[in-house]
């Protein structure tokens, strides 16, 4: 009886050993805010990754390697992001990590990934993720500063020089406000007043009254909350009829629907996914964008968002690098830095050993709202 047990244990152990040493599987960890307040980022990112991994596996994997996706839901909590990142690196021994969804979480695990020499492809936007640069850390969304410069360039075209800025008291709002205040002078823009409101603000009539009292020529709002729709409505209600600019956080058709007629004419920078159909046929991104939009919407029966696109980009970057370098972490990391002209949803990626974002200002397009739909601003 004892012998049987020993054999059984040995047998089980051998399965474990074989399982671990089986070379044909690449484990990809995903640390995303699938639920919680940042779920509008993490949920589409996780769905996109699941879709892409299933698709790649149905075509025989990457270079014969099957992919295994391990999604960890942080709920937007940085502490959970840390423990999941450690778990993925130490226990699951993943090949690379996609995520986290938010900048705060990414900054918490930047050093963990760097020390463990594990590739991290963040889906969050803050520039501090890649500047100062960490050898193993990359990010796929466009920089905030590009969005700000795009807005200022548009203002110059429209002859606007005196603006009012309102932003929410979140990481996103703060980062945008800093960039606006830093870059305004170089672009000949004077900020007459800069107000920060609470992210849960339910009405902003007093704030827009203050903007009106300061005779601003235009308003820039920087937030990702319902407040972006509230500020539009309140401005129109008190008769503040100046051009309204928003951040790339406005790229969610839900806010347009909520603000209704007040959203008409809002100008904001965004990736081209939102206007994929209306792009010129010779636009290099059009094919990729339409394909992703079609696949995602067919599979999940919900509208595609730019945030899911960040997950898409992270996956195709990893895929391109593995195809080139094989299943070797170090070589894949080097291969990512060598990626040129890779067409993604956020833009066209050109990485180098000095640029771990790979996008330039042209990744943003100025959009506006017409008849309740996003269109390219002409």
């Amino acid at each position, binding site marked *: 009886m004892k012998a049987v047990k020993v054999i059984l244990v040995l047998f089980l152990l051998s399965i474990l050993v074989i399982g671990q040493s089986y070379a044909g599987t690449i484990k990809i960890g995903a640390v995303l805010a699938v639920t919680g307040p940042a779920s509008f980022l993490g949920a589409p990112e996780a769905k996109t990754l699941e879709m892409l991994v299933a698709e790649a596996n149905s075509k025989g994997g990457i270079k014969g390697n099957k992919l295994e996706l391990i999604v960890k839901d942080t709920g937007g909590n940085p502490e959970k992001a840390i423990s999941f990142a450690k778990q993925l690196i130490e226990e699951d021994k993943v090949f690379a990590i996609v995520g986290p969804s938010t900048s705060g979480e990414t900054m918490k695990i930047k050093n963990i990934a760097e020390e463990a020499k594990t590739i991290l492809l963040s889906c969050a936007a803050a520039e501090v993720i890649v500047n100062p640069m960490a050898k193993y850390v990359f990010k796929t969304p466009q920089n905030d500063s590009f969005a700000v410069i795009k807005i200022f360039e548009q203002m110059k075209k429209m002859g606007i020089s005196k603006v009012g800025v309102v932003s929410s008291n979140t990481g996103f709002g703060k980062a945008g406000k800093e960039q606006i205040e830093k870059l305004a002078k170089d672009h000949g823009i004077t900020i007459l007043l800069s107000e920060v409101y*609470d992210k849960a603000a*339910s009405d902003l009539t007093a704030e827009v009254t203050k903007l009106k009292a300061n005779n601003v020529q235009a308003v820039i709002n920087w937030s990702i909350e319902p407040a972006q729709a509230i500020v539009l409505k309140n401005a129109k209600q008190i008769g503040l009829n100046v051009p309204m600019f928003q951040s790339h956080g406005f790229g969610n058709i839900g806010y347009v629907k*909520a603000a209704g007629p007040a959203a008409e004419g809002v100008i904001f920078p965004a990736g081209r996914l939102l206007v994929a159909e209306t792009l010129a046929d010779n636009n290099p991104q059009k094919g990729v964008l339409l394909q992703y939009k079609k696949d995602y919407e067919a599979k999940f029966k919900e509208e595609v968002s730019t945030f899911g696109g960040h997950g898409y980009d992270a996956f195709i970057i990893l895929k391109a690098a593995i195809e080139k370098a094989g299943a070797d972490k170090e070589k894949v990391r080097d291969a990512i830095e060598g990626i040129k002209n890779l067409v993604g949803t956020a833009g066209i990626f050109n990485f180098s050993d000095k640029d771990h974002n790979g996008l330039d200002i042209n990744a943003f397009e100025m959009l506006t709202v017409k008849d309740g739909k996003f269109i390219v601003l002409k």
Partner: protein
Amino acid sequence: MNTQLFFQYFVAGVTYGAIYAIVAIGFNIIYNTTGIINFAQGEFVMLGAMTAVTLNNFIPLPVAIILAVIITIIIGALIEILFIRWLVSPSVLRMIIITIGLSIVIREVALHIWGDGIYALPYFTGTALKTLSVGGVFISPQILWVLGICSITVIILNLYFKYTLMGRKMRACASNRSAARLCGINAKNMVTLSFMLSAGIGAIAGCIVSPITYVQYDSGTPLAIKGFTVAIFGGLGNSMAAVVAGLILGILESFSIWLMPTAFKDVISISILLFILFVKPSGIFGNKEALNLKEF
């Protein structure tokens, strides 16, 4: 500052105040019968608005609102029956923790049902952009709706608690539950009734403020915090005081924006709350003796 701007800030303040007040009333009802604060009150507000928005896709607005209020009342009753009724003489602390837990559960369920999108009912009269202009001061008609329904609710509640048998039974339970039971009042039913009533008021609040504030699965909590502040400010349990306190707080906040950066707006309201708690814990219109009789 010219008079026109002065009144524009004033109107903004009244807007904030009316929203805070109608949320605060819901807190007061449960407090009045049970002596506890229901921290899931904000979730009733969110549920009412969300349900009405969904129903409004199929049926006209007034019917949708009435149905949404009824559905929220049923949810309120179910919550009380499932989670609170069977507790044997629960402590105040335990009840509060239960309501906090419930608020988290409701929020997550709402996230699964409605997703993270933002919704709003249409303006009851006119559109989002239509405002009444009085001497250059712009007032959204929805504010008048909020103020009107807020006042009607307060009046009806006062009459109900003072003059109907059911209302008096509920008040009796709040004063002394054992004595009320000795008089043959079914205290448990009264608590269920108060949850239903406050869920209903919360749902009404959600429906009338959602065109202004929008509603999202997690928008109940911030509204509840302000509503709670106002309820304490006015004196817990007193709905009329809540309206006055709400308006005072809203107007103070609005004028603070004129003088100071917006970021200080919440500092003002929280400072007021702390000040009241230190100096006059029964609230500005509260009765000190009455407070001493309460457990909490």
